[in-house]
């Protein structure tokens, strides 16, 4: 792995509803550097700022302070749609990643053109369809025979798999996974996660994955980050990470939080 920084987050802060009774500090002087080829898992309790971190990287929310660099480009002030060319994203909600009234192949064609100017050329070409068919076949869900079906007809697991394929169809500089298996049943979640690892390894994708499942967080990737109240409270990589146990993480969490969050335990 080279030493190229794919993502550099420099001292960002984000507060919601500033100055009101609902003021919520989501990220506090937060910094993170992601190297090319990293697969980072992010864990933390509710309100730790994990999803805010994702949304701030994507540009869904502007930051109050700090800087965000993607592949060396300062994107802090870029709108969401202009950062998309660097990013592949899969959301927690399976409904969010696909266009339900459009065909499966049309969804793929949209994703294939991520970051490109959308011209008056055909939205999908005959030559692309064979490529999409091959890619869909890899999912093992039989979607390659349903390419003209509307994406809205698919189940949650199928949609997440399709979204994952869409996020990686055109190789992103950074793949962002926001608890993308949380809304799925355990069996489907395992399948989607396995495909995630497969596709990330095969394309050497730099990946940041939020998860509530501590076992997945330990098993997947080369680096693990634990967040608490908008800060990184634990950052571990390499051999140390491999030898982690869930109990270690809980211990860390307990030590810093003082109390144990239910959802962490259940995850």
């Amino acid at each position: 792995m080279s030493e190229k920084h794919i993502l550099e987050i420099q001292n960002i802060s984000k507060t919601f509803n500033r100055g009101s009774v609902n003021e919520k500090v989501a990220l506090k002087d937060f910094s993170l550097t992601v190297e090319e080829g990293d697969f980072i898992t992010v864990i933390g309790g509710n309100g730790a700022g994990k999803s805010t971190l994702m949304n701030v990287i994507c540009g869904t929310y502007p930051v109050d302070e700090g800087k965000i660099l993607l592949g060396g480009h300062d994107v802090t002030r870029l709108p969401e749609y202009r950062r998309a060319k660097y990013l592949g994203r899969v959301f927690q909600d399976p409904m969010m990643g696909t266009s339900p009234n459009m065909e499966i192949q049309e969804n793929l064609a949209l994703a294939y053109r991520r970051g490109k100017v959308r011209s008056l050329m055909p939205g999908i070409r005959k030559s692309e369809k064979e490529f999409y068919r091959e890619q869909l076949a890899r999912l093992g869900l039989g979607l390659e025979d349903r390419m003209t079906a509307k994406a809205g007809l698919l189940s949650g697991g199928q949609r997440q798999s399709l979204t994952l394929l869409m996020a990686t169809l055109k190789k992103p500089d950074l793949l962002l996974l926001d608890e993308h298996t949380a809304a799925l049943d355990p069996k489907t979640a395992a399948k989607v996660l396995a495909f995630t690892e497969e596709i990330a390894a095969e394309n050497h994708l730099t990946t940041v994955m939020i998860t509530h499942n501590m076992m997945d967080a330990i098993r997947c990737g080369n680096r693990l980050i634990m967040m608490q109240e908008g800060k990184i409270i634990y950052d571990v990589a390499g051999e140390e990470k491999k030898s982690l146990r869930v109990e270690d993480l809980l211990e860390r969490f307990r030590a810093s939080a003082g109390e144990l969050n239910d959802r962490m335990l259940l995850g």
Partner: protein
Amino acid sequence: MFWSALPGAISLGLIWGLMAIGVYITYKVLDFADLTVDGSICTGGAVCAVLMASGVNAWAAIIVAIIAGALAGLVTGIFHTLMGIPAILSGILTQLILWSVNLKIMGQANQVVDSRGSYVIVSQLDAGWSILIMFGFLAVIIAALYWFFGTEAGCGIRATGNNPNMSRAQGINVSLNKIIGLMISNALVALAGALLAQYQGFADINMGRGAIVIGLAAVIIGEAIVTRISRNFAVQLTGVVLGGIIYYIVYQFVIWLNLDTEYLKMFSAIVVAIFLAIPYWKKRYFGKFAKKPKQPPEGGGALPAEGALTAEQPTAEADPPETAQAEGGADHV
């Protein structure tokens, strides 16, 4: 008397069907309930009538009317995207602006088009010929829209209306696409207004009142007819035109029965309201996702940022099986 009035009803239905195609683009494709149309149809008529009264050729006049309609859509789009005003309100504001603008264009409350003395494209003096011309117009427009919404840019607009979150993640400029969609829609509506002014021989400040309801009625009737046949976009648009024709045939029938036509708008609105309610009721009481509990949002995350760009109204949704989207479903009640 009913049969003799039929060609007139059909040609009016075709003109309003063209207008309804404009409504279809905002309401169905863009998921944007655009009330601008009540004003922009009159703008189209007013521009066309005034230009023709000053001796401009009928074809040149409709081209200017189309541009005027597109500008009206641009204003609504700017209200919504740049200024964060909810969709419905943006349309109402533009509608109000257009009321003054339309009066200023005409200089009075109406403007005659001399359909005997000068060349007009369609006219109620020759309904049969008007029907033929309108068929030609609609064929060209449906073909053009079918092509456009199949292009990369057109697919981007469809995705914008269907799932703005996904669209942004795929690098689609949602705001720009909404503006383009609104401009196309209101350009078509203004074209319908211009043709209507030529057809009936005048433009009138009130000619657009309730246009949105007629447009929606045509969209709904059309959908009910053709959805079982095909979901193909061109077929859907043809259905919308059929919806417009059926609306005007029913209108003619009501007149023929000597019923009080003053009730017509009320009945149209009630029928549209019921049809709009059906998908909602289906989803709420019979839907697969009817009782799905809401996922608790993470952290302070989801709360505030919804404000600026996603000022969309949670309008009544269409296509019941496919609207399992989180926004529409759970937030209603």
